[in-house]
């Protein structure tokens, strides 16, 4: 199974984390370590670009749920962008959409964050 690759780009106070590959249980520790380091680096607003994620299993959704909790507990905000319709359906099914925002594109996620800031 293809492992998950992560890329980080920091824009002002927003950190863009791009995930590539399969989001499964193996990604648990590295992804958490990464997000915690981003949060401790002062970036409280995080956008996950999921456009290059090929597969998410139930454990992968469990990781996303836990990440949302972690970021919110750190007084941060998280936006998910470009999740494929298939997995978006699953996300909606398990209720993740009720606790995190999903956007069609990264730009929309950024715009939403900026709009939240201006409020």
């Amino acid at each position: 199974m293809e492992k998950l690759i992560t890329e980080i780009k920091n824009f002002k106070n927003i950190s863009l984390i791009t995930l590539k590959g399969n989001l499964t249980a193996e990604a648990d520790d590295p992804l958490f370590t990464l997000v915690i380091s981003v949060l401790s680096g002062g970036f409280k607003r995080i956008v996950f670009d999921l456009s290059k994620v090929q597969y998410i299993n139930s454990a992968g959704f469990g990781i996303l749920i836990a990440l949302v909790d972690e970021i919110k507990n750190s007084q941060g905000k998280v936006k998910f962008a470009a999740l494929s319709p298939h997995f978006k359906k699953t996300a909606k099914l398990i209720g993740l959409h009720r606790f995190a925002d999903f956007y069609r594109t990264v730009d929309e996620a950024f715009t939403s964050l900026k709009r939240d800031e201006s409020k």
Partner: protein
Amino acid sequence: MPLKLKFGLFVSFIILFSLLIPTVLFLIQSRTLFEKTSHQRMDNVLLQVKTNVNLQVRSVLQTLKAAATSYQQAHDMENSLLSLQKVNAQFKTFFTLNKQGQIQLLLPYDGEMMGLNLAGEPYFTIPFFEQQTHITYRRASPIYSSPSIMITTALEMATREKRSLSQRGVLGVIIPVTSFFQNATKYQMSDNSVIFVLSRAGFIYRTASDHSLITGHQVLVDLMADKRSSLKKEFSTPAGKSIVSLVREPLSGWIIGLEVPFEDLGQHYQSLYRSMLPWILLSLFIVSGISFIFIRHLNISIQKLVEGGRQINEGNLDVPFDLPVHDEFGLIAHHFTAIIKSLKKGQENLESAYRQVTSHQLMKRDMSVAHQIQQAMIPTQYPQRPDIEIAGVYEPAREVGGDVLDYTENQDGTISILIADVSGKGIPAALVMAQTKIIFRVFASEMDSVVDIMAKANAYLYQNLRKNTFVTAIYGKYYPDIKKFCYCNAGHNPAYFYSQQRGQITEISDEESQCLGAWSTFEGQELAVKIEPGDSLLLYTDGATEAKNINGEMFEEIRLKKTFKKYHHLAAPQLIEKIKETIELFIENEVLYDDLTMIIIKSPLT
């Protein structure tokens, strides 16, 4: 024989041979050399004695000749006698000078008479003197009686008759031959060697009183009969074996001899040997000591190696080989240590591999037991009722699964049904699966509302699950009196409902559902489906829709619906089996990626 003993003996033999052979050869050579040297020494002694005698005789003869010449030319008897008296004083001789001017050496006994004739030629013959003199003497015999005593007797007789001889106008001196050998003793080769003179008259004069070693007189005479100037020969006498060397003095015609017992010759050799013996013993001691230290060192090294080998053989790989690396044994120990390290590493690897294999076997056994336990938790039989058909299937992707399938026939005639999917796989998911099944049974016994039961289960799971674990579930109750299945969907796949009346499948979604265990609060709603005769409700986990074939193509919801519709007419057990077969045909030989769990609630046609 132990190796160390063999080696020690070998080294000892090598050392002994390397030491003894040269020593023996040296002694043999030294003996030969000594014998050669002894002969040379004998020759030297004889030469020195001969030279000494020759000089003395020459001196006497010159004096006599001068005296004779003086008398013959000047008839000065007085001066001539003075000259002769000088000789007499020096040599204790007794010369006479007759009226014809002839010097006559009177030797009344066995001694030689030395004289000159008128021509000045020396003569030494006894017959001459016996004829010319009128000395009466007793001839002594035998020849081996002491000559010195004889000579003394002769001198006394000569002295006694001197006057009468002078009165007859005959002057003379007597020179005992022993006078010429007064200093001969200083040339002695050894304590028992003898220097002697054999006179022309056949008398023997010798330096030692002990004559036992002197060989037979006649033998010596015979030896010199061939007129050779020198001769050396071995003799066996009653006293022992000896060697006699003879040389002829030309002026006097005397034969000068030296007799040396063989023992004396050997004395020097034995002395040499005795002087060498301590050094040989010391060398042997030193060599033996070095050999002992060397063999002891070898023995210690070999013992350490043997002991180390024994301990290795007994399985002790921590044995130290503390031999310094300055010889071959040290190198062997060094290589041994390297081999032991490799063995130890290999043993550790083997033990690690064994532990892994054992661990794997234990895990496999545990998984097998877990599988059996889990299978016991999965329904194998379903209610056999005329009003409702229920049938399920549970195929874990691994040894144990994370799906939940359960039903309960309640006392009021209702049937509780639970289908759930735990996130993740393997043992962790299986443990959560067991918990989920139990808590639903517990909470279902406490309350009626499916939403309340869901909320209670969510609260429990939220507190007890790991942060990234959640459960999706459909829990409901079938009420036979109203033919309704009332349920709550907690983030689970929507149920498929086949309506006999409409002849189509409806997907019953709940937009507001959420999974269990992820969030502290739960918001859900109760859904109700009326199941008329011929209608059926399919509940499933995503293992059914996400089953993949070899091309990575998923079975998808559409195929599931299609299959469900195709076989809707079958009774619930056959229907669920057909759906399962269709999925298995689709994935062919591919293994299930996720647990495959389905349950059908069907109202049979009357």
